[in-house]
């Protein structure tokens, strides 16, 4: 069953660069919120804020590197 789940996941996980960044931002934001916040409301705010910063900074850096891709 585990092998079957792995094969399914392996075929299903076709992440684009942006999708990989979103997944990374979400999971790391969740973990950092748990580490730094002790209340549920504070944790939710931290997750949203950290996730938004991850995505915005990632997009900003991507645009800064765009001229180098040519």
């Amino acid at each position: 069953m585990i092998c079957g789940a792995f094969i399914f996941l392996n075929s299903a996980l076709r992440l684009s660069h942006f999708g990989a960044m979103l997944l990374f931002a979400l999971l790391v934001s969740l973990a950092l919120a748990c580490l730094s916040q002790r209340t549920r409301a504070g944790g939710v705010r931290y997750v949203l804020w950290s996730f938004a910063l991850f995505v915005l900074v990632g997009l900003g850096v991507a645009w800064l590197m765009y001229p180098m891709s040519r």
Partner: protein
Amino acid sequence: MNEVPGNEAALSDNSINQNSDDHATGDQISGDQSPVSESSANPAAGDQSIAAAQHPQGSRANAGRGALALFAAVAAWLVPGLGHLLLGRWGRALVFFCAVAGLVVSGYLLRGNVFPSHSGDPFGTLGFLADAGAGVFYYFSRFFEAAGPDVSRAAGDYGTRFIAAAGVVNLLAVLDTIEISTGRRV
């Protein structure tokens, strides 16, 4: 994710509160043994005998707290979230397990590089330390990455970062477990 303090495990919190009470009592009593109080007219010999009686209990409590911290830390490293689960923080345990497992499994599926322990260069050693932070998931790499890593694509490079980030997140969770079990953090 974050529990209301009233819902947290009674066992660990009670032990921590009891230990802090013991500390407070011990500090007050040992304060009576300071030179200022010794120079007073009545040095309160009864208080000194109480302090002598209380001190072994305080050291035993500290030893017990240290053993609990060590046990929880090892458990938290081996299985992400298990340390918090042992301390009764089931919400945080679930979040840490899901975050670390999600990062590691995604990294493996992206065919990221898993650094071996016998790497020759310092960067490889740092990579191994980061990867090994994921505990038991590190040893699943041979199972998940049967075809081996593929860092010739960008996805494989992302996978390498995912695996390393999972290990670092789990190491931070281990430190959090130690702080909770020693009573430095709620």
